[in-house]
């Protein structure tokens, strides 16, 4: 058996130039900085990093960030599937407007979203006042953080699932119906498994985005230690205190946990593909 060659000669010119620009910029903008974070962690040493991370305030913020991000991603999974289905399969006035609007969280700067959501859901805001009359406080509580995280993660599942819904052949659903399956049974046993891998990808992207989110959350969160303080905010606080080791420790912890989550979800995706095949 021969090894695949490192590079297959191609007659097209520009390989050296394009490879050079790609690798140089990738190294300078992404790899060198991430390497600097890991190097800083390595020189500080595991015990020092552990001492920095191992405080109730930091564990509290990490747990809060991941718990709320998970809930937000699950809510986005459900509504993302619903939106993808409605936007592809149904015809109604305003459909194209809704379809275009789904991408708003990608285009609207997070700081703008943050102050807008706060203005809306603060006790004196339009929706906040309604909630207040029911005795519920949204802004400056964990509900507010959850709301901001749902906002930033909203487009992911819809946008990954939509193309798959378009590809589904109606004959499959008709076959299921002719064999006596109810509509709900067809959706659950025929359609949903086809959407699952794309939905999981969207879920993972939504989760990764929510875990790292800062701009839209800090305005609405209230930022009370142990209650509404998210992990990225603690990095900013540590940096303002010139505690670089502390900031590095939280940064590395966040990197590791989000990579671990992506790995788990990728594994789930591979499993579901093995069971139902590629769609």
């Amino acid at each position: 058996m021969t090894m695949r060659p490192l590079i297959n000669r191609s007659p097209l010119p520009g390989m050296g130039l394009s490879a050079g620009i790609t690798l140089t910029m990738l190294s300078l903008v992404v790899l060198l900085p991430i390497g600097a974070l890991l190097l800083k962690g390595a020189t500080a040493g595991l015990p020092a990093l552990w001492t920095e991370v191992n405080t109730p305030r930091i564990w509290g913020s990490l747990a809060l960030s991941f718990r709320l991000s998970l809930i937000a991603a699950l809510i986005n999974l459900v509504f993302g599937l619903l939106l993808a289905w409605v936007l592809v399969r149904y015809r109604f006035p305003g459909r194209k407007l809704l379809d275009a609007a789904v991408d708003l969280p990608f285009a609207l700067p997070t700081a703008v979203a943050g102050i807008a959501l706060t203005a809306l859901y603060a006790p004196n805001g339009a929706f906040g006042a309604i909630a207040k009359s029911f005795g519920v406080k949204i802004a400056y509580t964990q509900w507010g953080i959850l709301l901001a995280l749902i906002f930033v993660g909203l487009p992911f599942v819809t946008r990954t699932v939509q193309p798959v819904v378009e590809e589904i052949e109606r004959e499959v659903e008709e076959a299921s119906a002719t064999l006596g399956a109810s509509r709900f049974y067809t959706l659950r046993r025929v359609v949903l498994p086809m959407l699952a891998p794309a939905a999981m990808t969207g879920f993972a992207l939504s989760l990764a985005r929510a875990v790292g989110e800062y701009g839209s959350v800090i305005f609405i969160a209230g930022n009370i230690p142990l209650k509404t303080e998210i992990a990225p905010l603690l990095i900013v606080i540590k940096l303002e205190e010139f505690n670089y080791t502390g900031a590095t420790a939280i940064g590395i912890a966040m990197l590791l946990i989000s990579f671990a989550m992506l790995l788990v979800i990728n594994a789930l995706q591979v499993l579901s593909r093995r069971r139902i095949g590629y769609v």
Partner: protein
Amino acid sequence: MSDTHLRFRPVATEPAPVRAALILTSVAFLAVLLFAPLIVVFVEALRDGAIAAVASLANPEAASAIRLTLIVAALAVPLNAVFGISAAWFITKYDFRGKALLITMIDLPFSVSPVVAGLCLVLTFGANTALGGWLVGHGYPVVFALPSIVLASMFVTFPFVARELIPVMIEQGRAEEEAALTLGASGWRIFFTVTLPNIRWALLYGVLLCNARAMGEFGAVAVVSGKIRGQTATMPITIEMLYNEYLSVAAFSLAAVLALLALVTLTLKTLLEWRFADQLAASHHR
């Protein structure tokens, strides 16, 4: 016998009441979560009238923030476009080992928190690091200055153009470029007369998204910029400062400018999806 029994009832859709309920749920969800905050930005900006809103944009702090944001975008977006084109050319025109790893590396910024990205840049170029100290010693401060803001904006938007171009260029294959080569065209000629016309709409699409994100980036810039008024405060950073000083109209007026930019971006993006769907990555087909 009434003819309702004979009417065709499609089996591959849900009953009408279910459809109506699902549509209403979707509309309500988006109205509360997307449309309401968007409207609030403009309502709050115009609270004291249009004149007060425009006047707040003309004050030196806001004006300098707008200028800085434009400069940052004018540097970060073209640089990322050059990167995106190079990466897409390299990845789609040649076969080499480690291609999947390279694509993963390019996608890396999507799974890194912007705040962590900012932290990484501070640890690389900060005045108390080896590289940063050397640069400051030679009169080129990076952190708390323009270069770090550009680098931070580039980090968070790094994959946008490449991700848009790679699927399109894979779909188009290499035959046209190879044909041009056999006809004796030079590398640059092939790129400008064969490749670029094929990818221009996808490139514009990627640049649009890259620009919107670069102008609106908050977390990464907040960490590296030092938030120096009139010097390193971009529009999103200035919005935060004004908001924290309870200057609501000024904060929301600046926010309204960015919201308008977002609306223009979405409109252009949607037009591209309708008009040039066949020349964009397949996932954007509508």
